[in-house]
């Protein structure tokens, strides 16, 4: 299993949710930061600028080097989802186009310059600047118009259209403030190698292809009230070590060369669950489950009955049992539980029922044929399944192939590497494609299901339903969560009825750590936060 993505998701790279809420103790005189933590990750970051980067590896680092304006912590306190970060309080206009933040005045960047409203403006302007070539943050930002600065500590961000998703997205590292002095000094490209934020850790070095090291920020004194302590972090140094091979990451964990590893093979994770001396963290994430996308334009999957037959012929429970037992749960919904507007009733729509699959295929004209493959007008029922190479779907696709064979469908599996495969998907050469999507907001539907995302976006299902587009826009027209749920649910129902997505499993952010690592927290998208973490001897 691999959680491979080159995009942290168009709608943001994770908002900060500090799990395990407790009243914060005021730190009188905390001991000096100590301890060195090594984190084994599989992919090298391409940029350490949160405004530019599209990779999760970069997000792992940025969430500790930069602070967001607000924190998104659903479930921590009744009636409150958003908590102060660099902003103490905020207001949203009724049409969800103007967001005003009142900022803290005691914050400094790592280069010593003060954090002000100008910094917020400079950061957003940097993100939308074409020179920056922002991969992810620019989409998280949305239909940006301009920023108004009124005084050192009040800033209003204005959008051209309603942007109900913004509160979720501004709580991510992608939109976190960057030092304007650093932007001036290094330029839009240069800040990729010289990240200067306000976070509890500051950047020390980046040895290309080998590791990135961050060290404790001794001046840090503006931790959000929901943190477990105030003042500098407990850890002195964190090294993000790049180890592309999963078995080596595992072995490095065993030898102690890394203390936390991500993306290990499921059998190894299961082994660690049983072994002594290790903790397996499985942080829930929001967004879309690992799924198969079905091409609604290419025969034979252009027939909704064939697509629905695929849904009924898929036994997610068997796949989990075979591959991810004890690690993940099967998924039956286009949203993950915990995502706003997740509708549990949709889970029941396509429970495994091979008989029903067969009758749907019969109804669609596919009769039993030679070699166990159904036929219609002399054509066999063959599907083209193109995997993303090394993405972690290879075994799933083989199991699906076997399951679908049972109802008379032949599947041809191949793989192409990212990013070539994205073009293939956009062209529509496939019947079946892999995907998952990290996002904090149901507005992810826009990126996945909108009609204009087919030729060059993520709509690899080539699915177009103007009603869905309208509902999604409606859901984004307000920032009030309670008003957003209904349209998104309706849109989700329509998408599921069209059977263009076959959900497979609810992934979690799985990290395997030595049990020396204590008090590790995670964002809503499963990024580890090290502020409160300590290392036992």
């Amino acid at each position, binding site marked *: 299993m691999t959680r491979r993505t*080159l*995009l942290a998701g*168009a709608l943001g790279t994770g908002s900060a949710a500090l799990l395990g809420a407790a009243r914060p103790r005021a730190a009188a005189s905390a001991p000096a930061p100590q301890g060195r933590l090594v984190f084994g990750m599989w992919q*090298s970051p*391409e*940029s350490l600028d949160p405004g530019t980067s*599209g990779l999760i590896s970069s997000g792992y680092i940025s969430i500790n080097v930069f602070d967001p304006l607000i924190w998104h912590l659903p479930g921590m306190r009744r009636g409150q989802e958003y908590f102060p970060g660099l902003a103490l309080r905020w207001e949203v206009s009724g049409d969800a186009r103007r967001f005003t933040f009142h900022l803290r005045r005691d914050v400094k960047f790592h280069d010593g310059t003060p954090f002000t409203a100008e910094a917020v403006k400079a950061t957003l302007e940097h993100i939308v600047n*074409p020179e920056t*070539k*922002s*991969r*992810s943050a*620019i*989409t998280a930002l949305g239909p940006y118009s301009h920023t108004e600065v009124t005084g050192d500590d009040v800033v209003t961000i204005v959008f051209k259209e309603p942007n109900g998703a913004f509160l979720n997205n501004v709580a991510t590292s992608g939109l976190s403030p960057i030092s304007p002095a650093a932007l001036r000094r290094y330029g839009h*490209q240069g800040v*990729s*190698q010289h990240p200067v934020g306000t976070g509890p850790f500051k950047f020390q070095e980046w*040895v*290309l*292809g*080998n590791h990135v090291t961050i060290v404790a920020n001794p001046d840090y004194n503006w931790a959000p009230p929901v943190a477990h302590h105030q003042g500098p972090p407990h850890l002195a140094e964190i090294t993000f*070590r*790049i*180890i*592309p*091979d999963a*078995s*080596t990451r595992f*072995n*490095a964990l*065993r*030898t102690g*060369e*890394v203390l936390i590893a991500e993306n290990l093979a499921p059998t190894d994770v299961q082994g660690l669950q049983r072994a002594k001396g290790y903790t397996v963290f499985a942080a829930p994430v929001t967004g879309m489950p690992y799924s198969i996308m079905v091409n609604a334009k290419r025969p034979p999957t252009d027939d909704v009955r064939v697509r629905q037959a695929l849904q009924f012929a898929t036994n997610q429970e068997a796949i989990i049992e075979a591959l991810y037992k004890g690690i993940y749960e099967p998924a039956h919904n286009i949203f993950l539980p915990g995502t706003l507007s997740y509708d549990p009733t949709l889970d029941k729509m396509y429970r495994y029922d091979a008989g029903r699959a067969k009758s749907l295929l019969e109804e669609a004209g596919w009769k039993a044929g030679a070699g166990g493959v159904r036929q219609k007008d002399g054509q066999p029922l063959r599907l083209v399944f193109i995997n993303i190479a090394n993405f972690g779907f290879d075994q799933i696709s083989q199991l699906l192939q076997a399951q679908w064979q049972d109802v008379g469908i032949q599947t041809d599996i191949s793989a192409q*590497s*990212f*990013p*070539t495969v*994205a*073009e293939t998907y956009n062209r529509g050469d496939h019947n079946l494609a892999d995907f998952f999507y990290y996002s904090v907001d149901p507005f992810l539907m826009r*990126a996945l299901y909108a009609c204009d*995302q087919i*030729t*060059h*976006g*993520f709509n690899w299902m080539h699915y177009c339903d103007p009603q869905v587009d309208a509902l999604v826009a409606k859901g984004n027209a307000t920032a009030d969560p309670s008003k957003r749920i209904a349209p998104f649910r309706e849109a989700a129902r329509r998408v599921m009825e069209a059977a263009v997505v076959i959900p497979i499993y609810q992934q979690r952010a799985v990290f395997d750590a030595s049990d020396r690592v204590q008090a590790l927290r995670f964002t809503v998208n499963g990024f580890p936060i090290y502020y409160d973490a300590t290392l036992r001897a």
Partner: protein
Amino acid sequence: MGAFIGRRLLASLPIVFGVTALVFLILHLIPGDPAQIMLFGTNATPDQIAGLRRSLGLDRPLAVQYGDFVWRLVHGDLGVSFISQRRVAEEIGLVFPATATLALATMVVAATVGLGAGVIGAMYRGSWMDVAGTGFSVLGVAVPNFWLSVLLILVFAVRLGWLPALSEGGVRGLILPSVSLGWGFSAIITRLCRANLLEALAQPYVSTAYAKGLRAGAVVVRHALKNALIPVVTLLGLQVGNLLSGAVVVETIFGRQGLGSLAVRAIQAKDFPTIQGVVLVVALVYLLVNLAVDVAYAALDPRVRYG
């Protein structure tokens, strides 16, 4: 000697340009638009993608693009990576030492094992030691690199704890990767060394040396080995391209930065400037190393110089 080197350098130029032209052509034949890849997921409109293509110079005729590439190359500019927006020369410069170190260490291992097995094989020709020696080095070829690396890590890092699983700077982190790569290369060195040593040992001057009372070991070392080494040195020069291939695998497994992994990432992302930069550097190294080998050859054997 100077004229010899000069002539060889001149002869290398067409090869360098040939390689860069070939790569350039191939890259543009590969399906995939770098601009689209760079803007992937940003909801860019087709207009924006076209705009990026223009700013990257990708819309000009191929000949013009190649000419521009060569012009900048002559001025030492390898362009800017599409992925990281960093200068390619800078990125290559950052990872090259690691690959070079690995390559040297690999050569040392390959030469040691290869020469050792070759000498034993020649001296005790036909005995079980001969077969064992050849078999040992052939084993290095028979086991795929990535598999051998994992096995070495399991045994020496996880079970025994003698060596690190990850390749950091320093000698200890270099041992397992270089053994993993070098073992495979040793096979051909063994075969060559053994064969050439056998031939050298058959020369009359060897019998004379024995007749004069020199021990077998001394004979081998002082007289025959020098002649046997020449083809081995030649061989090492030819290995440069293959060394990079093996390095890709080993760097991935041991978490070592280097040209290999840089190249693979660049290919997957269609990062043309980086790919071209890496190929160019490798070609240059190959030519320089072979030139050095030929110079050494010429220095050792005057007949070569005017050939």
